[in-house]
């Protein structure tokens, strides 16, 4: 017997939680002397009102799907991989190297190569913490935090000293060759007669991200490996009883996790910037944690949570473009959304459950 129908748990609770978060965000906006209703309108309009806005929203969403999935894989193994940021940075390096090394004739060739390299570099960056966790018991939370810092230093060095275009100001690599240009939504949809804004950065990576989410689902719930990962994550002693090798699972799961984070680079590095710039990840690794936690480590949840954060990012940008609201306000809204949907969900659940129980009792009588 259930306390509450499943649909209520899946739909009503997040809905009410988001409303609560928006309510408090509104209070903050009102507190700094702006009109919250106007702000919401600007955000929704900016994020979904035009194909341009939508293109940006989906671009951010793509990043967050990758990092969210990355965190979720580790999470199913009961590993708190806080290193998505660094792994995504290294993924960017891998993508940049492969895009620059070869004069790619067509993106269909470049994309798989970039995916492979991005994932490989990301996975490699996750490997050392994973190995240390599995074999030496070094706490993965610290090692991955440290690897974020180390990755930043490494990329800082490479971009200022090795990969930078001589004479250029910015610490960034050369632009990738045209053959490595990924089709944007504009280019993808034009053949179908749909006119998508040609400047929005959303690109074919979004489809890769959705596919990755699907593969994630297959992997976790339909394959032996996923089964073993989840079993290990739930109970290490039981996993040993079943003959599941703990070190192997830890390392494989972290490699997948790092690989997914590294894959993000096909979107921001290859799809958007078309060059590797400093600090290209911009905190998407950390947002991925929130996305995975909010999405309850399930791909559908992750995609939806990523979309929500994509909306906040893009809507928030519009807010600072047109409303002269400090850009940090968006961070506040993000925080409140994470808080209410992720941590304070019981605040909504408890009264709702009581309500459902009350009505079901009444029906029985």
């Amino acid at each position, binding site marked *: 017997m259930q*306390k509450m129908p499943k649909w209520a748990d899946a739909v009503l609770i997040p809905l009410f939680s988001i409303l609560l978060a928006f309510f408090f965000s509104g209070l903050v906006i009102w507190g700094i002397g702006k009109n919250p209703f106007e702000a919401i309108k600007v955000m929704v309009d900016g994020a979904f009102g035009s194909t341009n806005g939508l293109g940006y929203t989906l671009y951010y969403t793509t990043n967050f799907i990758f990092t969210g999935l990355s965190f979720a894989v580790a999470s199913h193994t009961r590993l708190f991989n806080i290193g998505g940021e660094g792994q995504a940075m290294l993924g960017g390096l891998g993508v940049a190297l492969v895009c620059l090394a070869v004069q790619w004739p067509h993106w269909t060739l470049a994309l798989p190569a970039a995916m492979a390299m991005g994932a490989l570099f990301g996975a490699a960056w996750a490997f050392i913490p994973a190995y240390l966790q599995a074999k030496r018991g070094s706490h993965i939370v610290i090692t991955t935090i440290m690897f974020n810092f180390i990755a930043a230093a490494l990329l800082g060095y490479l971009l200022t000293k090795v990969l930078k275009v001589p004479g250029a100001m910015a610490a960034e690599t050369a632009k990738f060759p045209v053959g490595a240009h990924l089709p944007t939504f504009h280019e993808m949809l034009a053949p179908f007669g749909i006119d998508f804004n040609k400047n929005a950065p959303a690109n074919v990576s979004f489809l890769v991200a959705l596919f990755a989410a699907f593969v994630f689902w297959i992997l976790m719930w339909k*394959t032996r490996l996923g089964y073993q990962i989840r079993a290990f994550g739930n109970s290490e002693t039981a996993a040993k009883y079943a*003959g599941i090798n703990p070190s192997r699972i830890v390392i494989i799961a972290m490699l997948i996790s790092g690989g997914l984070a590294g894959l993000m680079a096909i979107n921001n590095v290859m799809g958007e910037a078309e060059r590797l710039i400093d600090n290209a990840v911009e905190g998407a690794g950390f947002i991925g944690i929130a996305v995975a936690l909010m999405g309850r480590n399930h791909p559908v949840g992750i995609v939806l949570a990523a979309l929500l954060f994509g909306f906040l990012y893009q809507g928030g940008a519009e807010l600072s473009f047109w409303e002269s609201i400090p850009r940090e306000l968006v961070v506040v809204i993000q925080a409140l959304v994470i808080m209410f949907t992720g941590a304070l969900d019981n605040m909504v659940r408890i009264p709702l459950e009581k309500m459902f*129980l009350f009505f079901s009792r009444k029906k029985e009588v």
Partner: protein
Amino acid sequence: MSAQSEKGRQATAAPTASPAPAIELRGISKAFGPVQANKDISITVQKGTIHGIIGENGAGKSTLMSILYGFYKADAGEVIINGQKVEITDSQAAIAAGIGMVFQHFKLVENFTVLENVILGAEEGPMLRPSIAKARGLLKQLSDEYELSVDPDALIEDLSVGHQQRVEILKALYRQADILILDEPTGVLTPAEADHLFRILQGLKEQGKTIILITHKLREIMEVTDTVSVMRRGEMTATVKTSGTSPEQLAEMMVGRKVLLEVTKSPANPGKPVLEVEDLRVRDELGVERVKGINLNVRAGEILGIAGVSGNGQSELLEVLGGYRKASGIVRMNGEEIDLTGKHSDGQSRRKRGIANVPEDRHDEGLILEFQAWENMIFGYHNAPEYQKNRFLMDNAAIKAATQAKMDRFDVRPPNPKLEAKSFSGGNQQKLVLAREIERNPDLLLVGQPTRGVDIGAIEFIHQQIVALRDQGKAILLVSVELDEIMSLSDRIVVMFDGRIMGEKNPGETNEGELGLMMAGITEGDQ
């Protein structure tokens, strides 16, 4: 009103009209969401008696006691202690009312010392040192008085369960409890420890303390209680004087049908040896030798029972055979030597050789509590070809169908493969594990503590299944701390003590007394 509760009323109302009863519960109800765990329960317990409570898994026994102890809050009803109505809002209030409780799963801080655990929440003052000093004296006095000796400075995690339980009792006594509730206290104890416990309980009773004892073991009820209540599906169905009832009658009241309390089995028909163990030695993580060179064999079509007080190497033996502990020595399965230390020493390789394994701890090992029943049904066999759709994907539909069939065959209730393992009762969880392992049709079945914490209805069923497997000509290695179980199931019995085998007995030619001595390390020679 039913005849049974009429009878219950007479039983409790009859004896002395002198002092007020120690405990009187009136109309207690408690629901967990949609589950009505307790329905309008009333019960009276006289001062200075031992009162037993029995009932199937999930009948609501623990819930009722937790309410009495203030751990849960009742939805309705009142509690009267020594004739006075008390509001038990939390455990603090219960403690103040003189109630102490020993939970089924101990409430001890593992890496604290005994002393720290005892004084936790009942410290003398804000500083620890004086509290500890004072407690040390009091503890010594209490443990002398009630034969509850434990080392006050030992860490809980280093103590055997029996000793941990003593700490729990000391905790209650330290808080000057007059009423002591014990929830399935013997589930994890050896017979010797259990006997010791009952002596302590008798002593406490003589001191005028009132004791409530929850157990699944009718023998214990018959031996130590004065009165007994039976619960079924959240309701109190009867309360009777122990002297006026019989195990069969109690079992019937509990389950609602007749239960066979004896295992019926034909004589064994053993074949060739399936498992041969030679000079097996096992060291634990700290390097201490836990199994010190044992030799044994199990033949097809027989049940070899290993008796012994827990902690004498049986668990390690099972773990080695199950593949999740390293060892030295020789183990042969169907005549072939198996790897004890190398790459092929893991649960998977063992299963491939036809060794199935019902582990001692179904929560920590046998099941993933968060997994649904069907996912648990392939646990350990997730690599088996029949569960795969192709190289990459598992065949979840087939697994679910197979699970449904197994659940039906093993009468797992509710028979829903999509229910998470944690929402089954202990008995049904155990049936899930057994269904998984037995249905693999193994050559050798390792079984550890198959009926720990399981109600008698389920015990009967589980025993029947084990015997049935034997009758198919399979070898079974049974480890249990329940001598009853060992005696009634085994075809041969070996006794383990301190990592060694003390001797082998035929169940028909031995008795509990003799085995008990061997379990204590006393061999025939010594006698």
